[in-house]
């Protein structure tokens, strides 16, 4: 087979040598625009798993590569003048130049033709070949030529970064977070040879502009960075290599091959550099492609196989890279965290590593995280042993919770204390008969109901569990039948005995629902009165904490969302107008609810429907609530309308809690299908939430059973 490879980067060279090795009768020719000794970039990083794949694919180049490797297992983080050390992460670094030289030598040894300084202007000008492999990088000529076939999508990132080298010996992957007069800068640095390190400097676009780097020359940029990181560089110099401040672009292609042309590595996909995977992915692509061609004589079948093998792996990594990129584009948001939480959040940013993973990798690091969490970062407080975050206490206003676990028995079920929890949430409780969602929903307006509640709260208070009530007015979701396990009749209107409904606007919840009437100003005052009265009852009945329900399409939430609020008065239109009534309710309840008892809000953070409420709206609403004395936010999403589509899964509400907590600086209670203490510890230790609403085993799949 005649094979032409465009680009003599790691992917092209490796694929060439593997193909030739598998079948020496192949004619493999690699065309490269640059001379053999030109290289851009400094070092490349591989994980131990990738190395194992290299060992299997070609032992000779594996040996040559590994003999030149710098190995390290630690990640150092400079943050607020502290150096945080975490080990147990095995990486290998290598100069890109050494990697290329090694692969070039191996190619020559196997008889692969290497044509350097050969510019390909047009694909049509290539000599005919049975297979053309485009390993020509992110600006691939081949991909651009056949855009219609590959359907590339390029999404540019928002941060600016510059790829530099430092003549500095490092013994760890090193992150540096540096506050400057212009804003936050961060460095990703790792060793690749005994005396050189890659040194990537990154910052937000506005910081980059403020620092005047937009106009700076390459040399001026270096001087700027050397001065900024003088403390950490300790006299080491920075070097450029045709380095520019750029945005990272993520590339995805709908197809990776067309006819006899196939994309490899960066030509097909890119993943943010912060998870160090570009070269790794490219070389793994090369292995998969060479394997497929060896296995299947039919070229179309082989290229399909290559694409099917690699695509899920690449997409998984691109997902993790996107999480990591998102973190580094908004790092400023996390600088409110104490150093242990900041560091833990950084290490778990791509959501692939958990608390338990880090405990295995570095028990001392986790001990420090635990201790710091338990003492709230206080250096003076002495404790002998620190529990994991989930079993630390939390002082919330005047309320002390024994741990971070929160449970919420379903309102329809019998109320029983969930042993092990620090807080039990009861509700939603209706503030009035007309505010009920279903006929049997308990409420705090009714003397009988609240008398039973008193007994139940008292029985919980015999344990260390504190009790929180959720107050709700169901609005247009009222007068519905209760949800059942089978034959779903969710949000189905009552056949008999329905009561009139109210909402922000006169829009029915489902086509079958009763059309509510628009809440009048007088009716608003009545609703406020219902909430304050229910709050007083809750206080008298011994509840320790209160949450007001402003989510899931209920009355207060119906004001917040533009989908359900179409009012033209002072309570509709702009976000400030839409939040006006919910804020009035909150302020009134805050007046009557005792100061020392926490008052929070279950807040809708996005509708899950195009054109609906967004997380940005929720951040603004949370900030306004905070100003009125709100102690806690429980982020929720969806159910504003029945069409909502959410990315359901484990801890699906956690990103909302993290944003509210770090950006607004509020205590967050997060739910959304969290079932393990490992997930809870990962969220808590990373400063993403303060309290975890755990899903009890009864709502999970069968626990292991012992058969008799």
């Amino acid at each position: 087979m005649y094979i032409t490879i465009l680009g003599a980067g790691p992917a092209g060279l490796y694929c060439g040598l593997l193909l030739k090795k598998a079948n020496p009768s192949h004619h493999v020719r690699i065309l490269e625009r640059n001379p053999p000794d030109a290289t851009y970039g400094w070092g490349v990083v591989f994980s131990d798993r990738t190395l194992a794949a290299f060992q299997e694919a070609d032992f000779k180049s594996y040996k040559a590569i590994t003999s030149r490797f710098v190995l390290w297992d630690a990640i150092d983080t400079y943050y607020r003048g502290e150096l945080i050390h975490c080990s147990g992460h095995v990486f290998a670094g290598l100069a890109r130049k050494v990697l290329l030289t090694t692969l070039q030598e191996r190619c020559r040894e196997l008889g692969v033709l290497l044509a350097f300084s050969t510019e390909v202007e047009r694909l049509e000008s290539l000599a005919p070949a049975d297979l053309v492999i485009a390993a020509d990088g992110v600006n691939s000529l081949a991909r651009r030529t056949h855009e219609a076939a590959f359907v590339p999508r390029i999404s540019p990132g928002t941060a600016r970064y510059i790829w530099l080298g430092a003549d500095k010996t490092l013994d760890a992957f090193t992150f540096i977070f540096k506050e400057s007069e212009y804003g936050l800068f961060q460095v990703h640095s790792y060793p690749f040879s005994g005396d050189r390190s890659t040194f990537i400097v990154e910052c937000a676009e506005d910081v980059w502009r403020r620092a005047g780097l937009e106009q700076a020359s390459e040399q001026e940029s270096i001087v700027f960075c050397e001065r900024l990181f003088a403390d950490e560089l300790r006299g080491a110099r920075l070097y450029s290599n045709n380095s520019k401040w750029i945005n990272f672009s993520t590339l995805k292609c709908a197809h990776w091959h067309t006819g006899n042309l196939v994309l490899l590595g960066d030509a097909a996909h890119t993943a943010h550099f912060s998870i160090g995977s570009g070269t790794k992915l490219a070389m793994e692509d090369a292995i998969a492609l060479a394997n497929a061609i060896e296995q299947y004589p039919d070229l179309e079948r082989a290229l399909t196989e290559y694409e099917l093998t690699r695509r899920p792996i690449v997409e998984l990594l691109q997902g993790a890279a996107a999480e990591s990129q998102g973190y580094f584009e908004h790092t400023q948001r996390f600088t409110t965290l104490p150093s242990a939480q900041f560091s833990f959040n950084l290490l778990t940013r791509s959501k692939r590593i958990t608390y338990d993973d880090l405990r295995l990798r570095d028990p001392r690091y986790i001990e420090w995280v635990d201790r710091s969490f338990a003492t709230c970062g206080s250096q003076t407080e002495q404790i002998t042993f620190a529990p994991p975050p989930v079993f630390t206490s939390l002082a919330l206003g005047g309320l002390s919770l024994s741990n971070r676990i929160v449970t919420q028995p379903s309102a329809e079920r019998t109320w029983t204390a969930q042993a092990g929890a620090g807080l039990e949430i009861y509700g939603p409780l209706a503030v009035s008969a007309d505010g009920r969602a279903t006929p049997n929903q308990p409420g705090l307006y009714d003397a009988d109901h609240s008398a039973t509640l008193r007994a139940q709260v008292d029985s919980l208070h015999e344990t260390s569990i504190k009790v929180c009530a959720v107050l709700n007015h169901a609005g247009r979701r009222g007068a519905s039948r209760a949800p059942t396990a089978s034959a779903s009749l969710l949000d189905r209107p009552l056949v008999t005995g329905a009561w009139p409904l109210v909402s922000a606007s006169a829009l029915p919840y489902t086509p079958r629902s009763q059309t509510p009437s628009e809440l009048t100003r007088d009716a608003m005052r009545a609703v406020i009165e219902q909430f304050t009265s229910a709050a007083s009852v809750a206080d008298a009945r011994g509840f320790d904490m209160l949450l007001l329900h402003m989510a899931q399409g209920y009355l207060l939430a119906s004001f917040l969302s533009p989908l359900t609020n179409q009012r033209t008065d002072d309570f509709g239109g702009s976000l400030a107008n839409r939040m006006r009534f919910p804020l009035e309710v909150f302020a009134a309840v805050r007046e009557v609810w005792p100061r020392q008892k926490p008052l929070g809000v279950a807040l809708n953070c996005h509708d899950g429907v195009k054109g609906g409420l967004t997380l940005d709206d929720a951040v603004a609403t949370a900030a306004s609530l905070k100003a009125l004395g709100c102690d806690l936010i429980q982020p929720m999403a969806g159910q504003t309308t029945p069409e909502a589509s959410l990315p359901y899964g484990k801890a699906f509400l956690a990103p909302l809690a993290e944003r509210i907590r770090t950006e607004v600086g509020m205590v967050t209670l997060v739910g959304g299908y969290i079932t393990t203490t490992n997930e809870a510890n990962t969220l808590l230790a990373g400063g993403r939430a303060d309290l975890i609403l755990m899903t009890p085993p009864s709502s999970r799949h069968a626990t292991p059973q012992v058969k008799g």
Partner: protein
Amino acid sequence: MRVSVGLPSTIPGCQGRVLLEWARRADAGPFSALAVLDRIVYDSYDPLIALAAVAGATTRIRLATNIIIAPIRNTTLLARSAASLQTISGGRLSLGVAIGARQEDYEATGAPFANRSRRFTEQLSELQSTWEDKRVGPSSAEFGPPRLLLGGSSDAVFGRVARYADGYMHGGGPPRAFARAADKARAAWLDLGRPGMPILWGQGYFALGGDDIIEEGHRYVRDYYSFTGPFAEKIAEGLLTTPQAIAQFLRGYADAGCGEVALFPTSAGPDQLTRLIDAVSGLASVESAAHAAEVGHPCT
């Protein structure tokens, strides 16, 4: 976990009497249900007609569509057929519905392909209403409406399951793929305040026997899924070809909390059922047929 077996109703050339004989033998075997697939433009039987015949030929075994393409059917007629089958079979039906993936099935029935997702959601609401109102279909209320389960894999599916249905039918794949989908279904279920847990079904293909049987199985799966393009090859690779593979597949699904797995044949040969009965009998992860036989036994 319970194990069901597929009816060879979508295996080209399968004769009517073979289906009924297959059903009788499955009824006497360890299986909890007989499941059918749905294709329009393919050599195959109408799923509800096939199950109606099966209902008459069997006494114990439950019946399931895994899945039936809803938007290409008139909702009222579908509700009526399903209610009829539910009543005739003595409450043995689980109706799995989904949007389907093949445009040709829409074209063949004259149903619009555009907006199929929105229409599907409306259909779900309408199915429940029709069954509840009893305006159409048999009035006998002895068995209640059939269980409604949804297939599909988009984000929107899991919210629909929690809002309109009793559970989720996974489309096949390794246990870890099922486990991820099951978590999504449970998260949505909990989020919408549904008591209990969604019923969860898994699915796999098997071919047990010599190389010729396995080759026939691969050929069938490749052909059946040829509309997915190259992905058909991946599905064919997942074919369960040994009792060991079946045991591990079922264990993986059981550990992920699956309530019921439907194993579909890729050949209509009578030995396939015999071999499958041998393969699943006595597995620790499989619930016995006697237990599974109780109609209305709560599924998990």
